[in-house]
């Protein structure tokens, strides 16, 4: 996983709520067995509309997506995170996220940032006024900064540390292999097995 400390760049306002993962990456894209090539599928339904925000040239190359509440609800497909990252996003800012999407993001190093509905709306308006607006997302200090505004966000210490170090969960868990062995030795003996 790529480490994340601070990102400074331009942002895209996506003025929609309930952006479910079926919109982020429609099911037809999920048939691939590799981890690459999902950027083409990002919002592929909505991108057919020439006015869709990602089709507007002033937002090309932005690394931050600023969306309405309940971003990433629905399907557990991690392909949604891969698609956002492969398209070039490093951060998604929204007032509320779907739990599974949020989890998937932090496993992959895409930073989900929760700001209030008011802060998100303010930021979206500022970007629309000035698409070249520079936005800084500072994970170390848990701050988003733009235009003299500083917005604090919450993230638990452990996830922050893991993102900043770019650490892979499996490696961390395997440090506790002995604890897993001990648990297995005491597990409910009649729980079912598949083989």
């Amino acid at each position, binding site marked *: 996983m790529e480490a994340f400390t601070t990102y400074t760049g331009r942002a895209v306002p996506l003025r929609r709520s309930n952006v479910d993962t079926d919109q982020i990456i429609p099911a037809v894209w999920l048939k691939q*067995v590799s981890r690459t090539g999902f950027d083409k599928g990002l919002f592929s339904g909505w991108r057919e509309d020439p006015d869709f925000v990602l089709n507007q040239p002033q937002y090309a190359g932005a690394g931050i997506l600023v969306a309405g509440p309940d971003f990433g609800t629905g399907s557990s497909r991690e392909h949604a995170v891969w698609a956002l990252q492969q398209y070039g996003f490093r951060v998604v800012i929204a007032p509320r996220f779907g739990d599974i999407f949020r989890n998937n993001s932090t496993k992959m190093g895409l930073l989900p940032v929760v700001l209030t509905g008011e802060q998100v709306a303010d930021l979206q308006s500022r970007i629309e006024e000035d698409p070249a607006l520079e936005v800084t997302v500072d994970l170390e200090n848990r701050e988003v900064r733009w235009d003299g505004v500083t917005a604090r966000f919450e993230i638990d210490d452990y996830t922050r540390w893991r993102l900043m170090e770019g650490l892979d969960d499996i490696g961390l868990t395997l440090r506790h292999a002995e604890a897993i062995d001990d648990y297995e030795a005491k597990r409910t*003996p009649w729980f079912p097995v598949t083989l």
Partner: protein
Amino acid sequence: MGRTLAEKVYDAHVVRRAEGEPDLLYIDLHLVHEVTSPQAFDGLRMAGRAVRRPDLTIATEDHNVPTTDLLKPIADPVSRTQVETLRKNCSDFGVRLHPMGDAGQGIVHVMGPQLGLTQPGMTVVCGDSHTSTHGAFGALAFGIGTSEVEHVLATQTLPQIQPKTMAVTVEGALPEGVTAKDLILAIIARIGTGGGQGHIIEYRGEAIRSLSMEGRMTVCNMSIEAGARAGMIAPDETTFEYIKGRPHAPSNAVAGGPGGSSPQNESGDDWDRAVEYWTSLRTDDDAVFDKEVVIDAAELTPFVTWGTNPGQGLPLGASVPDPASFEDPVQRQSAERALEYMGLTAGTPLRDIAVDTVFVGSCTNGRIEDLRAVAGVLQGRKVADGVRMLVVPGSMEVKKQAEEEGLDGVISASGAEWREAGCSMCLAMNPDKLTPGERSASTSNRNFEGRQGPGGRTHLVSPAVAAATAVTGRLTAPADL
């Protein structure tokens, strides 16, 4: 202080707890399908890792499989590659697989309970958000992404921050003609698509206790549509009765081969010990939930969705809402957009909405009880001219049972299509899909834009409403016929 059901099951699975770190949670059952697993198995290969517990892992082919011509190879080469990749992965890593055409094949969330692999007090995960279905048994079951699938394959554990708890209590009895699907759609409309975010919902109350296991699975299945991490129902006699005698139930000593139980299950006392433990899995009287919602069952009627998220639903007797009636600007804008996408006008009675297609199936409503409800309505009736109706059993086992009961004959005689098992038009990864602008009444779980095919328009309904709608060609409850 007492503990909730969710807390009891969670606590019993903590492998390691340390200040400032997520808990490490043990996973008792890992369900695998072809869509969210290939990159996880690849990750294992690259790191030179094995599947830690193939004996706690089981796979099926469901999302991509066609529901016709099972004996022919899958026509779509990309779907075929994905299914073949699962077969190779299961073979390489020693994971039991129920492939297309196998008697045990089916939608992953229909298959687990049907085999008796889902039991109270277990932790169950799958790379699929509708894993919440298994909570109907008093298991803690939740959907995960592909990175987590790889993590469970490698370690049989998951790092977790303990979710909060939420009680949804449904008091009183459901009125005649109101089903589990109507109930969960009404709950989601009430609490919203983010209402359960960060929480495990426990469904309680008389109306919940009166539901069959199929009905309970329908309710828990859609917990994710309310944003919840999981849904649970305390196990009781209904639960025990459902599990008893299934291939992997405790004490069932059918030895050998797929469907057989393990050597450690062969002690005759296991069933009694299991029931004793399962009976302890209930929320203590003095336990406190972080959030509570109470619903009066008597007020419920058949419920359908009009919009593009599962929270945008109303009683069938209502009309398409006016976006201006929403005070919250975010909801207002969402409603405006939904009406535009759905091609609906505010004020239109929902009963006047004509559909092109009716889909019965999915992990929400593809079980035997759902098919019985559909056949009950279609008996002696015909699907309206110009309406296409697909009936897709949730598993080959459900299909076989339905055929033994003669339901397929009733369904086919009405003009509906009786298909093979799979996810089918719930998410349109196989050839069953809507065309742009086509409108469906669907027993599935998501009315998202394009969910059933690009440009398709979905109204979520119960199986009984689906069947009645097929007969009239407009959104209809059986009582209206």
